[in-house]
């Protein structure tokens, strides 16, 4: 039984943790939250210099050629620091979509730039307040031109290109395809949108006959997206676990320091039991995510189920940890000056990023039924 990360992977994690503790303290998160910069440039540059944007990109495309497990430990640290960088958009989603579905020429063009941090990619799926699905996606792609509006697009302003979920007019899920579009091209306009977490910027992007090309075959968009989401679900899970742990630590520290009715509030069972529950959910999430990581790294057949379980457990853990972190702080936790808001905001952004828990529960049971029938 060797159900743990290797010493090398733990060393990498430690290195990333130290880097982020130094270069991405809470005041950096706050700076992005309160300002207009699309992301923390110096943090992003550091991650690029460490090779992390290319960690899972094969060496032939200029990456480090490491695996999913390395990305998992990095993701956990990004979550712990609430890092305001476009890592999930560019690495978990755009790079993985190209790696999985790109033609030789597309890989040749994009992967080296992504690895080197010269390009930032994102994925544009949502078209407003309804679940994106074969029934609802209206953005159109035909004859090399893309039209329609996507909102919100994570890192929509920072990204140089996007993988866009488009309607190419087939039956059911065959109606959807993925298109690659250069966001600096004509026919693309973008504007920042206000979100609940300004430390992670999002944009609305309007395409008006923008030049684009297919990523993967026409009609395969929905199925490629599900594959990409399964991998991303595991990586987001680690990010959420890192965030849960940070929120729990923050709550614990405050509970030790704050006195009420003559005692540390951490000595009351109402607080102790609540924080024990936060810990329990976090560990259940971690155990599920370890299995997700193992399946992701091995390309295991169990990935779709493991990814869904990782996603559900981690979303529940982080939502709970972030909410109870504020609750443990009392009124001070609801003030603008407190850092508790970072986790509360981020936990919801991550919860909704690639489908909320309800979507994943449905996916999980559907997959269990299929497995059971097989």
């Amino acid at each position, binding site marked *: *039984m060797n159900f743990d990360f290797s010493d090398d992977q733990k060393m990498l994690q430690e290195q990333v943790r130290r880097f982020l503790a130094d270069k991405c303290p809470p005041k950096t998160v706050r700076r992005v939250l309160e300002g207009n910069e699309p992301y923390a440039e110096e943090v992003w540059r550091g991650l690029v210099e460490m090779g992390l944007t290319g960690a899972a990109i094969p060496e032939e495309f200029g990456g480090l050629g490491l695996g999913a497990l390395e990305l998992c430990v990095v993701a956990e640290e990004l979550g712990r620091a609430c890092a305001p960088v476009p890592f999930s958009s560019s690495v978990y989603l755009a790079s993985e979509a190209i790696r999985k579905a790109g033609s030789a020429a597309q890989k040749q063009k994009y992967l080296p730039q992504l690895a080197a941090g010269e390009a930032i990619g994102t994925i544009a799926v949502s078209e407003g307040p309804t679940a994106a699905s074969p029934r609802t996606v209206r953005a159109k792609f035909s004859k090399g031109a893309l039209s329609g509006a996507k909102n919100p697009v994570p890192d929509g302003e920072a990204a140089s290109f996007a993988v866009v979920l488009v309607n190419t007019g087939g039956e059911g899920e065959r109606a959807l395809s993925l298109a690659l579009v250069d966001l600096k091209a004509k026919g693309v306009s973008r504007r920042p949108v206000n979100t609940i977490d300004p430390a992670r910027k999002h944009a609305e992007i309007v395409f008006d006959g923008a030049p684009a090309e297919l990523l993967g075959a026409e009609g395969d968009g929905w199925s490629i997206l599900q594959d990409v989401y399964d991998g991303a679900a595991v990586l987001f899970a680690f990010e959420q676990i890192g965030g849960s742990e940070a929120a729990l630590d923050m709550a614990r520290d405050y509970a030790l320091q704050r006195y009420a009715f003559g*005692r540390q509030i951490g000595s009351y069972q109402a607080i102790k039991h609540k924080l024990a529950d936060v810990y329990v959910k976090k560990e259940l999430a971690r*155990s599920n995510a*370890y299995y997700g990581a*193992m399946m992701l790294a091995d390309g295991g057949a169990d990935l779709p189920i493991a990814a869904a379980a990782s996603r559900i*457990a981690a979303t529940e853990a982080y939502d709970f940890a972030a909410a109870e972190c504020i609750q443990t702080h009392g009124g001070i936790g609801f003030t603008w000056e407190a850092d508790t808001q970072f986790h509360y905001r981020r936990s919801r952004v991550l919860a909704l990023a690639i489908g909320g828990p309800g979507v994943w529960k449905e996916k999980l049971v559907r997959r269990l039924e299929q497995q059971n029938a097989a």
Partner: protein
Amino acid sequence: MDFNDTPEEAAFRKEVRAWLDANAKRKSDDRKASRARMEEVDALPRARAWQAKKAEAGYARITWPREYGGMGGTPIQQVIYNQEEEDYLVPTGFFEIGLGMCIPTVMAYAKPEVLQRYVKPALHGKEIWCQLFSEPAAGSDVAGIRTRAERDGEDWIVNGQKVWTSGAHYCDYGIVITRTDPTVPKHQGLTMFYLDMKSPGVEVRPIKQISGTANFNEVFFTNVRIPDSQRLGKVGDGWKVALTTLMNERLAVGTRQGMDFDELLELARETELEDGPAIRNGAVRAKIADWYVQSQGLKYTTFRTLTALSKGQTPGPESSIGKIVAAPKMQSTGAFGMELMGQAGILDRDVPGAGAYQAQWIGGAGYRIAGGTDEILRNIVAERVLGLPADVRVDKDIPFNKLGK
């Protein structure tokens, strides 16, 4: 990352499997017998016989030193044995408290000649031990016990009452914690002994549980004479000795608690709600997803623990979350299975699962209390894992006999 055994572990597993194959029947070869429930009176002699066989082969307590009949093996070897044994139709369950908690305490405090006398018969299932700790007025707060032991020459005279004593009705020996000095604060006036359960003045009365069975007992002590030579640890050091016992609680690995998400998925496919098959109902699906996630979370938490053991490390604090999750889940999955059957869910037989959901719902209520309540376990996580302060103990510095009730 992988789930593979190391070469040594694989070799040991093979050895264990060969031995089990030669000595027991696989559950997969007799599904019906593997589900049958056996009355205690029938199960006990079989369990003793199986225990004796295991002890002869050295498998009864793998981590114990050879001089006590163990194998001098590692914790991971014990886990491997347990995992393999689960696939076989063998009667177990009567010796865990004795061998897992009582005898290790005796080993830590008694003289070699005492061990010479008691360890082997316990290991071979000839003598069974129980743990006499809880009392009517001292459950979670076990240091509040009132059973008195008073010195009388070379003996102690014990009076009082214990409760929730699992197996006392078939046990031969027990370890008992007593109050030897009520004039000092509660943790300081305790002393531990071992005793013969057939000593004059010991009376065991089974307690019928809400499940209808009687696994545990009240034990009354009326002028029971225990020789001072049966004292474990110093006079007044009973609390320290009790902690040794409690630290030896069996490492919970791989034990599954009854009907789980997979049976519920099956049940949801078989049963109808008002608007169609239960499995098509969103609320049903969400619950099955939640239990799958909890179940897998527990399973892979165990795998993390096993990884630490396999590497010869001490398992991390995550190993403490098992029962906090498993016990309420057992209760709620039982209740949910019943709900899927509609009003007929109240029937305890002739329903899907043949009463297993009903039994699980009943049993879950007990499992949330036994061996550390949900609340005590949360305190333990909060204090030992998160480093939060211990509860305020208003009785900590007050002599026991000056405490209000």
